[in-house]
Structures are given as C-alpha cells and as structure tokens.
C-alpha cells in the first residue's frame, strides 16, 4: 500500500513539475515564416553542443510571469518585423522549423557555468543544423525585461552571423569592440550589435569587430546568405501583428477592441496576474475589466497565424 502511495505521490510531483515547466504563453510573431527563433523561457537540458565541455547543462526556467514573457516577446519581435522570420515561444513550432534555419535562445537566470556575462552565442549557429542554442543570463541583467529583450535580440543577431558593431579611430585602430553609439553623442541611437541597453537600439551599417576595413550591413546579412531568410513582402508586416487588434475605446471597466480576425486574448496586470481572458471575433469587441485595475496592463492575443501583445496604460 505504501509502495502505491509513493508511486501516486511521485506521479503527482512529476505532473506538477511538467506543469511548472510549461508556463509560457504560446506566441508567434509571424507564423507564415518557416525560419524560426525559439525563445525558451521554460528551462531545459542541453547536451552534445560546444557549450558542454563540463557535461550536460541544466538551465532553470526563467520564472518570468506570462505578462513579462509576452512583453519581452513583443520587444524582440519588433526588431525582426522587417524579416521573414518567426519569433516563437512555442517549442512545437521550433521542432517543425527547418533544422538549418532555426535557433533556440535559452533565457535562464544563471550562467555561472560560462561566466558573469549577459549572454553568449555561437556566431552563425542559426544555419548549423545541430540545435546549438544561444543563451541569455537574466541575473547578469538584473532580471530587467527590457534588458533581457535587448540581450536576446543581440544574441539572435550573433546566431544569424552578425559580429559586434565596433568603433575605430581614423587610423583603423579599434577604440571599443562594442559600439554604444559614441560616434554621434547627440544621437539617441545605438547598434543592437553594440551596446543595446541604454539608447534606442536598431540594426546598423557599420564596421564590425573583424576590422575597420570591413563593412557589416546588419539587415542585409540577416536576410541574405547563408541564412536565406529574406524580407517580408510589403504590407505583410503591418497586417501581421501590429494592427491585428486595435484599441478603439478605453474607459474605466471597459475596453473596446477592433479585431482583424478571430483570436483568443488574455489581459494581465504588470505583475503578471491574469485579469481576464476570452475570445475576440472579427470586428468590434468589448472586454469588461475591473475598474480598479489601473496602471500598466498587457493585452496578449493569438490566432492560428498571428499573435501579438501591447501595453495599455489604464
């Protein structure tokens, strides 16, 4: 009898464990694209890669709330709106993607097996076909969702073959490997492949870390060989997620949304607490909310081919 009860307890613990590891909302930035970047927030085991000098690596789950994951996914997706590339949190989508056009970004608290860095990746691994992942280490980023998104975007850039955008003097001597946008101190912009944390970061054309004589056009390299991702067709970008669900009217206790299709939606407060959820039909939809729910809310929606999120100041 005791043996059976032990089995039942073990099964329950396994069930709880599986559920703890399956928390992330399933988001896709552009489901029409086969090339895929999988943001893995759920923890995993890594073996058989260049990272495994000391044996297998157990990456703990991020522990981030659904709202934070949704927000990070949106920030990252915004940087790839130009490209025929799907940013997903769905492991099944990753498994279906072409093996030589996919990468997994493991977002996990601790990177002590490698060192105290915000993240690490193997340059060009998107096309290697052997599922070598890249890493974002949250503890080194103060668990700040904005920094996590910036670091993840930077690492994705590396997996797509990009080197750092660097700063050189007039003689071609490197001043700093990671440009922070210093070449124009009045500008509020920095390269995503430099230091993307403190300014508005974007893809740039500039001199990479391989030498001042070289030129790296970030967008051309992402889209072109050997990734062969390409760009989205004109007009698809705006139809994909940005305008899929629009807020038409906002009042205490009520949100009126204009939906371009049939989607499921979830509304969170900034702490990640689910406030309400349901389904949207094409056209106008009213969501009843608690009038006491004020501050920053996150609305997340998903359908068969598109998903997205937006911040709402209530």
């Amino acid at each position, binding site marked *: 009898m005791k043996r059976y009860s032990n089995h039942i307890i073990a099964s329950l613990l396994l069930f709880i464990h599986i559920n703890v590891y399956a928390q992330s909302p399933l988001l896709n930035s552009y489901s029409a694209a086969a090339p895929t970047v999988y943001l893995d927030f759920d923890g995993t085991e890594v*073996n*058989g*890669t*260049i*990272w*495994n*000098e000391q044996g297998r690596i157990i990456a703990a789950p991020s522990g981030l709330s659904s709202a934070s994951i949704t927000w990070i996914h949106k920030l990252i997706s915004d940087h790839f709106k130009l490209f025929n590339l799907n940013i997903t949190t769905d492991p099944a989508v990753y498994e279906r993607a*072409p*093996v*030589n056009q996919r990468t997994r970004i493991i977002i996990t608290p601790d990177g002590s097996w*490698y*060192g105290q*860095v*915000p*993240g*690490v*990746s*193997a*340059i060009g691994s998107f*096309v*290697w*076909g*052997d*599922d*070598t992942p890249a890493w974002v280490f949250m503890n080194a980023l103060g668990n700040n969702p904005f920094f996590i998104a910036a670091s993840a975007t930077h690492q994705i850039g*590396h997996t797509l*073959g990009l*080197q*750092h955008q660097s700063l050189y003097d007039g003689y071609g001597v490197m001043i700093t*490997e990671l440009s922070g946008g210093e070449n124009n101190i009045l500008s509020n912009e920095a390269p995503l492949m430099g230091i993307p944390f403190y300014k508005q970061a974007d893809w740039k054309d500039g001199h*990479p*870390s*391989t*030498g001042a004589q*070289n*030129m*790296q*056009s970030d967008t*051309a*390299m992402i889209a*072109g*060989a050997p990734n062969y991702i390409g760009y989205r067709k004109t007009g698809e970008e705006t139809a994909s997620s940005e305008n899929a669900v629009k807020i038409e009217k906002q009042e205490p206790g009520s949100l009126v949304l204009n939906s371009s299709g049939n989607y499921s939606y979830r509304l969170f407060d900034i702490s990640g607490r689910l406030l309400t959820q349901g389904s949207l039909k094409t056209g106008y939809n009213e969501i009843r909310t608690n009038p006491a729910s004020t501050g920053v809310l996150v609305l997340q929606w998903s359908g068969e081919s598109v998903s997205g999120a937006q911040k709402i100041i209530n």
Partner: protein
Amino acid sequence: MNTLKTILSGLCLLSSLLLSAQEKNAPAELPYSNKIEVSDQALESLFHAPENISMELAPGFRIDGKIENKSNHGNSVISLLVKLNNAAGSMLSISRYKDPKGGIYYTGRLLKLHEPDGMMLVEKDKHYFFIETQQRFLVTE
C-alpha cells in the same frame, strides 16, 4: 569616335566602381592566422569512427579523443561532439548536412571556451579548410 571612346571608358569605370562597392557590401571573411585543408573523405570518416577516435584529418592535423555525443537533427543532419585528448580539453563539433538533392555539406568548429583562438571549418570552392582565428569571432557575448 573619341566621344564614343570616352563614353565607353566612363561606362567601364562606372561598372568597375559599382562592382567594387558590391564587394565591400559582401559579408566579410574572417581574419585567420592559419588554415589546413581537409578532404571530404577525411570529414566523412569522422562519422563512421569508433567511440575512441584517433585519426589524421590532414598531414600534421591529428584528432585523438572520444565521441561524447552523436545525434540526429531531423532527417538531414548528424552531429558529432568529440572531446580531444591531444588539444587540452578542446571540443570538436562537426555536423554533416544532407540537402534534399543529396548534396553533402559539413560545418564544424574546434575550440575550448574562454581560449583566445579557435578553429572553424569553412568551405570554399568545394574545398574544406579548418581556419584558425580569434575565438571572439566564433563564440561571443
């Protein structure tokens, strides 16, 4: 006649300038300090080697180590991870990719994390080379 020659010369100059501009926009090749050519057969033999590998991939370029992992990715990629005994704990990671038309391609790298240099397998004009380069161009933060 002279005007025609001038126009033709101008066109030639313009096209050469355009070509050189395109070359500058092409992805930069990695700077390297050394390169070793390896044959397709030598690379293929890695995938049929026993768990304890000892073979010469090219004259003077020897691999002694143990296969730590061999895995399939989809139906088209087989990957090997070899821990080397003769290069102070370095790992050789190499993948064999078969495209839908039956073409075979290899990608790989040989490195030890946090070391200044590493090697990368590159293909040029159907020849494979291990090039030695700074590791920050292969693995980076």
